[in-house]
């Protein structure tokens, strides 16, 4: 049983990691009061640019950096439109997705059939030798470790730092934050860029580690799931992490159930992650006050300093 359990858990971790990155990034963006629905497009750009960089330079770090920059670059377009030109956030995000799907396909056109062995695993000495826990937690690549670290960092940032407080203030009431003298536009721009960079890493994880290759549209809707997870998490980093693992976990478990020969139609099996997410959301949404406390009140509303 342990023989199956350990690799199954590892698979769940790898399936959940891109969701963790993309959703955490989007959460920070939303905390600042901005809703960017372009995650899928930013992920795809991260995936293709990261893949090009790594296959051209053979440097893992440059690959990840390129993926990050690609995602951030895409989000910069979004930032200019919604912050600079007051464009509607929802529609601009959707347009960014259309744009990103097209642009990534265009950029990646010569990459069909290009293989890459994937970024290396970095087992942590000693820790990775611990039975059971070692292989599960300490034998991953840098991006998986990074997803753990970033979850903690984001959580710490929001709760313990002044900058985190300011970010939340801006998201809760941009007018009040502006009146106090915080640079609302600048803070939102940084939050959007962070979200883009994280989506870029999520995409890079897909093309560098998860299935190291480039194929058009390879994110296959994961950007949308990440968006849903932010809502699911009621804008709390720990819950984003939990949500990503819940979704990833059930996705993998249903594949295992199929492989074991469960007599349920595969379509029904494939519905499970979505249904489970809805059900858990219903369970944790009872406390309206607590959700209100964490959700950015200004989300989606445009801001202009002169108003």
């Amino acid at each position, binding site marked *: 049983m342990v023989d199956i359990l350990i690799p199954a858990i590892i698979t769940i971790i790898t399936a959940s990691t891109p969701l963790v990155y993309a959703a955490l990034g989007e959460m920070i963006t939303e905390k600042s009061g901005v809703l960017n629905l372009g995650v899928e497009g930013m992920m795809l750009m991260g995936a293709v640019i990261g893949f090009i960089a790594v296959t051209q330079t053979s440097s893992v770090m440059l690959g990840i950096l390129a993926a990050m920059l690609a995602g951030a670059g895409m989000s910069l377009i979004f930032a200019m439109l919604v912050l600079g030109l007051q464009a509607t956030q929802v529609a601009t995000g959707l347009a960014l997705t259309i744009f990103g799907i097209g642009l990534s396909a265009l950029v990646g056109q010569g990459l069909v059939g290009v293989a890459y062995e994937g970024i290396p695993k970095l087992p942590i000495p000693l820790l990775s030798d611990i039975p059971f826990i070692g292989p599960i937690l300490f034998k991953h690549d840098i991006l998986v470790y990074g997803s753990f670290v970033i979850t903690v960092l984001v959580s710490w940032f929001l709760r313990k730092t002044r900058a985190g407080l300011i970010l939340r203030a801006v998201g809760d009431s941009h007018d009040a934050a502006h009146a106090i003298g915080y640079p609302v536009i600048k803070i939102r721009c940084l939050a959007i860029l962070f979200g883009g960079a994280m989506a870029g890493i999520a995409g890079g994880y897909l093309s560098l580690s998860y299935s190291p290759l480039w194929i058009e549209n390879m994110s296959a809707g994961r950007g949308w799931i990440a968006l849903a997870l932010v809502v699911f998490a009621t804008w709390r980093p720990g819950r984003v992490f939990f949500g990503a693992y819940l979704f990833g976990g059930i996705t993998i478990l249903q594949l295992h159930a199929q*492989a074991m020969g469960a007599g349920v139609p595969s379509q029904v099996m494939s519905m499970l992650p979505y249904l489970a997410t809805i059900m858990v959301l219903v369970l944790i949404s009872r406390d309206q006050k607590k959700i209100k406390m964490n959700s950015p009140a200004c989300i989606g509303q445009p801001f202009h300093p002169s108003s």
Partner: protein
Amino acid sequence: MIGKKLNLLAAVTHKVSTMLVALLIMVTGTSVHADGHGMKVGFIYVGPTGDHGWTYRHDIGRQSLESELGVETTYVESVPEGADAGRVIRQLATSGHKLIFTTSFGYMNPTNNVAKEFPDVRFEHATGYKRESDNVSTYSARFYEGRSVIGTIAGHMTRTGVVGYIASFPIPEVIRGINSFTLAMRKVNPDAVVRVVWVNTWYDPGKEGDAAKALIDQGADIIAQHTDSPAALQVAEDRGVFAFGQASDMSTFAPNAHLTSIVNNWDPYYIERTKAVMEGTWESVDTWNGISEGMVSFAPYGDAVPADVRAAADAVKDGIASGSIHPFDGPFNNQAGEQVIGSGEHLDDGDLLGMNYYVEGVEGDLPG
């Protein structure tokens, strides 16, 4: 240190940008040949040409028309199988294309509808069964023949006796492939079983890879797939098990794990049919070609395949090509243990067309 990094970054930017420019030139530099009697051939694809699978192989076939016959070709990619298909097919017909290949099952009814409107244009629909007017042909490949060959290899090479199979959607084509694979495998290894995971997509590298991992975790030491991406092969390579590629030669993605790939080879058919239109000999036919005609072909065996297994696989290949072996030769049973067909007989094409049951040796229930 920082300077060095910046230099590297500059080098990367330079490389990426030169590559981009080269790509842009590649994308747009597709020159149009003027000979080939000025004939235009149109293609409509269900996926992007860069899917490395189904559509990619059709597009290779299209390109062979340009290079071999010098005809002008056009394609429209990622056309959803809904209301859009009819419009695109019609648009190809009205813009001077004399021969139109519609390369997905879901284009069946739109193809036939448009064909009735344009009697002078020839239509070729892949994988369907309707030819409602005499300017419509249908064509498909007997991929199940290829699956018989790789099933033979799997039977010889599995140690655990469990083979994993990643399937897309429960349509007869896919079920036929699973069954053909299983029958061939159990001919050489009667105790081996096939476990199937349905991923409900043709095309999601992450999910295909996860399905491969789940199957390997459950004891499979060989992975076969009826989905389009090479992700499962990469997983097999990583986990040290074997796998078969799909649609195109996928050996570069898994140099050690790759045993062989079934390669969809549409080139000869496309060339033949285009020539027939040029020479005025085109007729409405139903083509179902396999190994003997070369529509189903194979990537070279991987190094891991021992000589005796190669010989056994080649024997099946040759047997199917010559007609001495049929992948669905009796006797064999269905999953419930009831005999489907007795010895000395084999299923005919009619039985194969709508196949919707598993044979003995496949584990799990058939969905749908």
